[in-house]
């Protein structure tokens, strides 16, 4: 267990492709940090740089106080869980778990003790003598986790570990990973493109875009006070609505709820109502589509070129094609300037 520090970390590939630029990030001992962003944002590259699988072209990474830039992955004392599990296909589950320990010359009784312990925690004891290909996806995932646990490393690195599982199993494993991390209190860095996974797992969330950090904070912080338009649009489902300030008809109706210089106004679907709730901005709209999803419905609204999604409870008493009025709660508006930075 250890803290991980990144200072001014960069990765430039030959041909001047900047995958990661000037990343500063301090991950506390025992913290669960999730790197999230669209594909190609550099999150996996950053994780692999921490692991030592990618070289670092600028800046420093230290794990547990020592700079590890020039160390081999094995010397960094980290364990990694891969997207496709990367289990050794010709070894039994037990041999898979033991392999890393054997390579570090761990004494036999200690190996047996740790494997038994990991098998018990992950409930894979019945499969210890099987080969990976005889296991289901979820079981393989557990073995991959087990391989990380037995090492008792300074940090766990997860590279989209749940992407290959079906939706139901993914939800289940997500909860298990969270429990496991709470129990072992091992510093963890987790990469995902799935914002739901990110929100539910993270102590702290790092949103990345085109090689840079957009915002770091707790999931609640990021959800309630996104610092950039990108974060606002990335976190939350359905995504936040954005309206151009210039497209809004009535300047007075905003009632001073957004500061001067606002170029774009963001509002979450749950803060768009079809009947007024508190002080709000009324906009005449047409219902384009209604998506009922159980406890709530997503109403897609259209007005000229503007497009809004309203998340309303139950089933609204309106039909597609009918005119209606959208009420945007003034207290819940997110103002962004022309560069996409949050104002106030």
């Amino acid at each position, binding site marked *: 267990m250890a803290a991980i520090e990144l200072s001014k970390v960069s990765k430039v590939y030959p041909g001047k492709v900047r995958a990661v630029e000037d990343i500063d990030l301090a991950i506390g001992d025992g913290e669960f940090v999730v790197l999230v962003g669209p594909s190609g944002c550099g999150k996996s590259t950053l994780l692999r740089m921490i692991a*030592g699988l990618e070289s670092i072209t600028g800046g420093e990474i230290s794990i547990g106080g020592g700079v590890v830039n020039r160390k081999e992955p094995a010397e960094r004392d980290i364990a990694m869980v891969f997207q496709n599990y990367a289990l*050794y*296909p*010709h070894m039994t589950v037990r041999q898979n778990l033991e*392999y*890393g320990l054997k*390579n570090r010359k761990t004494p036999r009784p200690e190996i047996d003790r740790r494997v038994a312990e990991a098998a018990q925690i992950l409930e894979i004891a019945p499969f210890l003598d099987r080969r990976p290909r005889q296991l289901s996806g979820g079981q393989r995932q557990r073995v991959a986790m087990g391989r990380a646990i037995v090492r008792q490393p300074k940090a766990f690195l997860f590279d989209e570990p749940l992407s290959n599982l079906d939706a139901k199993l993914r939800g289940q494993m997500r909860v298990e990973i969270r429990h496991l991390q709470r129990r072992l209190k091992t510093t963890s860095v987790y990469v995902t493109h799935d914002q739901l996974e990110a929100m539910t797992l993270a102590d702290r969330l790092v949103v990345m875009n085109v090689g840079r950090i957009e915002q770091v904070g707790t999931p609640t912080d990021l959800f309630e006070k996104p610092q950039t338009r990108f974060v606002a649009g990335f976190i939350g489902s359905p995504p936040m609505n954005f309206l151009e300030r210039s497209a809004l008809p009535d300047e007075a109706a905003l009632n001073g709820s957004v500061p001067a210089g606002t170029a774009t106004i963001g509002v979450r679907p749950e803060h768009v109502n079809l009947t007024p709730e508190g002080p709000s901005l009324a906009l005449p709209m047409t219902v384009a589509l209604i998506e009922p999803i159980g406890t709530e419905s997503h109403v897609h609204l259209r007005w000229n070129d503007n497009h809004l999604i309203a998340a309303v409870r139950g089933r609204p008493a309106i039909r597609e094609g009918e005119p209606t009025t959208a009420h945007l709660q003034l207290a819940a508006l997110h103002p962004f300037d022309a560069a996409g930075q949050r104002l106030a």
Partner: protein
Amino acid sequence: MVENRPWLSFLTHLVLIVGVVIVVFPVYLAFIASTHGSGDFMRGLVPLLPGPHMLENYGRMLTQGISTAGAPPVSIMLMNSTIIAIVIAVGKIAISLLSAYAIVFFKFPFRLLAFWTIFITLMLPVEVRIYPTFKVVADLGLLNSYWGLSIPLIASATATFLFRQFFLTVPDELLEAARVDGAGPLKFFWDMLLPLSRTNMAALFVILFIYGWNQYLWPLLVTTDERYYTVVMGIKRMADVADAIPQWNVVMATVMLAMLPPVAVVILMQRLFVKGLVETEK
């Protein structure tokens, strides 16, 4: 193969049986010939049933050979053939495993050039480069030796290419997981790649053993000492006698004996062989 009609299955069986007969009949004839006395072929009629001289013919060939035709006892030639076939097969596999490993997993300058150079040698079989190869072997003093018989045949572009294709299918994550688990390049090769290529190696061993066993031209060139004759070239020497009638009965006995080791290798390794050609263990 969805339909199941009686005449169709009759036809398929017929084709298969004809095929088997075509392949098996010459072998049967060779076996029959090896059981007769030396005079039985002078009559012009080839016997179709086994004769009484089987043990005599085989025993004579295994222990004495035909000294008039310059053929040493078959047992010596069988041993020579086995030794060089094994050295060639094992050597080819070892060298091509290593070169494929270097080409696939290491980034070094002129890597592609190295690969293509190896690949291009596919166009140069032993027969094409036989004069320079003979010169090299002769200058090294390797004529009439096991090394001279086997080493020039060991370099193999085909096997290198095969292992390269297999290594390319090994996911990068496996290498990375091994690195995180503390396996260096040699350990990765030994603990991961070798066990994973087990079936490929077995399949190649069968093919290469037979390749080495069937070598004819090269042993003919580099051996003048009877102690290093291989069985395939020995057969030719026996059949090729001057001013005498070839003793077909004992030649055929030698042929039968020469067939046994490759057949044994194929039968013993059949399961692994088929597995190596059709499936990858992943």
